[in-house]
């Protein structure tokens, strides 16, 4: 076990605790956007794919990286876009007459 690995585990455990602390306060009203938002955050996997792409070789490596890049990008772009779309629908009580119009503020 290298020192770096133990450092990574430390970061992992602390981040888990921060996650529990931050998220346990979110009201049920926002659970779907929260999950969708968390979904976008795991799109950070794209950062890993960029690192991966800098050292892979050969056809298998390239195919795996290509697929991973497509998956990761779909995750991160789609995730943030759809979460934003959802959250802009949450409004306070104002007399809104237009049902179908959703303006991007």
């Amino acid at each position: 076990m290298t020192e770096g690995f133990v450092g990574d585990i430390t970061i992992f455990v602390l981040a888990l605790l921060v996650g529990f602390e931050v998220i346990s306060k979110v009201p049920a009203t926002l659970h779907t956007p929260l999950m969708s938002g968390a979904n976008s955050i795991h799109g950070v996997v794209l950062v890993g794919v960029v690192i991966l792409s800098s050292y892979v070789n050969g056809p298998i490596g390239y195919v795996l990286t290509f697929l991973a890049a497509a998956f990761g990008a779909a995750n991160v772009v789609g995730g943030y876009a759809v979460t934003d779309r959802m959250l802009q629908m949450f409004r306070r009580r104002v007399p809104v007459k237009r049902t179908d119009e959703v303006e991007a503020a």
Partner: protein
Amino acid sequence: MSGFETGIRLASLAGAVAFVLGLHLMNSPATARRGNQLSAAGMLVAIVAVLVDVSHGGHMNVTRWLVLICGALIGGAAGLYSARAVAMTQMPQLVSLFNAVGGGAAMLIALADYQHDPHVSAGVALAGALDVLIGGVTFSGSLIATAKLQGYWSQPVNFAGARVVSAVLTLAAVVAGIDVIAGAHNAWILAIEAIAALGIGILMVLPIGGADMPVVISLLNAFTGTAVAMAGFVLNNATLTIAGALVGASGGILTKLMADAMNRSVVSIIAGGFGTGATGIEPVGAGTGGTVKSIALDDAALQLAYAGKVIVVPGYGLAAAQAQHEVRELASLLEERGAEVSYAIHPVAGRMPGHMNVLLAEANVPYDQLREMEEINAEFDRTDVALVVGANDVTNPAARRPGNAVSGMPILDVDHARSIIVIKRSMASGYAGIDNELYGDPKTNMLFSDAKKGLSGLVAAVKQVG
């Protein structure tokens, strides 16, 4: 550490901080959108930082750039398109699909890294083996969940020998994983683990019924986060580890909340326990113990039209019938007549955690009318009419007594209202498979109808009242 490297590390740190603060801002509907945008900005910083880092490192060549950019462009375009096109009722499918690709990408990172150089330390091998196992299960399991939610088939699928196949696959995955950790230095072993994991994912989600989906999606979300964190170990990258852990924690909390609200344990859902067959909207079924009164549309409309305080209780059946716009129309109509209308939202209403709130927000219901269970339960005592649409088990007073399938389940105190109207297609029992005592209550009137037709009928009839 050079100045350049310090800059890259600090940029990654900024990204991680933005994720945490972004999630924190999700605590309130007023700030949630800003939170998501902050999180997206952090993501952009993290991605730009790593791009600068690898291009500065001098290992990128034309092929590598092409592979990365082509993949990212295709995936990004597909993600953006589906995010724009998806209907809010289909949100659970999309979230599940993003779980799939996130978990899949995490698995592919471990596979590609190991295939490039299998001579890794035991720690990295352990993380890689876990990444492939969790990522593989998430990928195939989420795809099956997506297909089920999309309605290709919603009934649980069981076949003879499924458990034996699951056991064999699990054994294969564990043996292959241990071999990798023990120093197999052979990419094929990890590939075998990946294939076994994909099989496990399929067999895990196939037998799970539609009504358990809120729990399953949350769980797969937690899995994806964990797989991404493991990919962070493999690549020795703290940003992935931190972000993955955050998602793992959020998915874990939501899974627990959902399972508690459904009065089920996560283990029994995954093991395909009792009651997996029933969903909230079965055709004609059993009767209840008490005398059930049915009500005509016009009488129900009259009752609503002269009510001072109305609480709408929407459930899975309303989401399934996509009747959120009709319920909103009825509520507006009653408000114009001077009634106070609010919505009582049980935590598991809809098809994923909090789904009902999104559906009603889409139908332009302001979020301060959407009330959580703990908050609104006390108000049922002062309510003239509770209108239950497509909710069943979450309103069953039997939950307050021990000794039945819903005992201990947190419920909405609908039976405390002065009168109750239930819109329901038939007397079929709900997910727990038991009769709802609410329907036998003398204060309850049943309006037998499809949610959408019943609500639009009520809208027309209330307008007639004048």
